[in-house]
């Protein structure tokens, strides 16, 4: 290939990448505005919403049930924060096509980015929810450790799992509109059949092997390693959810790309 042709190919690829990025940002920004509104209360809502969403779990487990153990509030927060992202990615993923009805019915654009933009919107509240973990660390007197350096990796894996689930969730929402509440329940079950309320170390020997099969187990334990135990996450904790997400993406994205051609027919 001649240098001029190579340059042309690279330029086109960069332009396409930039177009994808711009589209993703625009879809996410509009979602964000739709969700949090305008004006001075935008920031307040953004910060308070995660507390409103997960605070009830914390109050129930820490105050009402008075669980013993190593900083139980922080331990639960380490599970709830990634779980909330996964849960919202699925819930909003299922409604993501219906919510964007006005643009899907009127414009041709890359609809395959819709689930990804839903995850990015949710990641905004995911970022805000770290205030809960920080609050718990202060309450229990847990100091940050160098294990925090693993946080970008752990967050990256969590976002990948959320994106992996958002694509099949979006298809499920289109195919089985009436079963969306069931989809939400399935994800909620993953929290309760994982080490969400009780850390893996406190589960029985027999249960641990089964709990490890839950792709969310690695996420919950990685957050605990980084914030609570002050140690590097074990390889399986990161690889297991990553492989799960990769499998979902490999299967769901091509299917989604094929199906999105007909979204406008379904929603109009």
């Amino acid at each position, binding site marked *: 290939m001649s240098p001029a042709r190579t340059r042309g190919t690279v330029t086109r690829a960069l332009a396409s990448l930039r177009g994808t990025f*711009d589209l993703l940002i625009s879809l996410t920004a*509009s979602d964000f*505005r739709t969700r949090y509104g305008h004006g001075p209360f935008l920031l307040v809502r953004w910060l308070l919403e995660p507390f409103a969403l997960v605070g009830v779990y914390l109050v129930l487990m820490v105050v009402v049930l008075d669980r013993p153990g190593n900083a139980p509030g922080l331990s639960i927060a380490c599970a709830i924060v990634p779980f909330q992202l996964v849960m919202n990615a699925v819930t909003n993923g299922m409604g993501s096509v219906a919510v964007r009805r006005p*643009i899907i*019915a009127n414009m041709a654009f890359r609809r395959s980015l819709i689930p990804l933009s839903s995850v990015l919107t949710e990641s905004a509240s995911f970022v805000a929810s770290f205030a809960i973990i920080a609050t718990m660390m202060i309450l229990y007197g847990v100091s940050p450790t160098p294990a925090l350096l693993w946080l970008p990796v752990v967050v990256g894996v969590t976002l990948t799992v959320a994106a992996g689930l958002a694509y099949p969730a979006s298809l499920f929402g289109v195919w089985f509109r009436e079963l969306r509440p069931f989809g939400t329940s399935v994800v909620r079950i993953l929290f309760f059949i994982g080490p969400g309320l009780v850390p893996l170390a406190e589960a029985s020997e027999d249960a641990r092997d089964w709990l490890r099969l839950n792709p969310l187990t690695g996420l919950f334990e990685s957050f605990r390693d980084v914030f609570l135990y002050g140690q590097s996450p074990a390889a399986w904790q990161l690889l297991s959810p990553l492989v799960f997400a990769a499998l979902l993406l490999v299967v769901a994205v091509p299917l989604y790309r094929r199906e999105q051609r007909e*979204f406008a027919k379904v929603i109009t």
Partner: protein
Amino acid sequence: MIEARDAGVRFLFGRHHRVLTSGAARIRRLDAETWGLRSLDFTLSPGQGVALLGPSGSGKTTLLRLLAGIYEPDAGRIHVNGKVASLLSIDAGLLPVLTGRQNALYLGVLAGLSRSESRARLDDVKERSGLGEYFERPVSSFSQGMRARLGFAVADQVNPRILLLDEVHEAFDHEFRAILERRARRLVEAGGVVVAAGHDHPMLERLCDRALYLSHGSLRADGAFADVQRQYFEDLHAHAD
């Protein structure tokens, strides 16, 4: 500029007459299959204004959506060469909670502009929409006419070569209809294509010298506007008798 060869658009229906995607139809019970458009063959050349005539449900909106790239053909092929702007519904993709400015930025990117290009054109969109200070307010506070004005100004910002209009232009006030007509005529004179569907035949006749008459998703007539309109009316009267 636009070429359709044996093009068709199919709708699959499940229970309760709900439209399904092909994937859903494989795992859910399929009750019926309908072709919204079938075996369409036509070519639209640069510098043509083309009206789509036909009763409700004849496939006019489906064809406009096919030309806009919103639907893809399930049979045959369609080739559209040139940037397309479409105004296919009054809300025109506008999100009610966003302001006119935010919608213009957002929809500009969806229409293919970069964020910086879309941002640079905001004042122009504001000017063209004629909304004044309302441009800075949420679209939920707009009347239908104001939404249509903004929708058109936003669609037009990409400097299209092809303009698709579906009845919604009939929601415009007289002043803006005149602006729209001028814009459409200028586009045709400059070698673009305007395809318009609607029931305001005098306006369609002013914009279009050619018409396609659709019936039950098939092309029943294609020719000079007056001839095709006559055939359409004859069929209507025959049907009424």
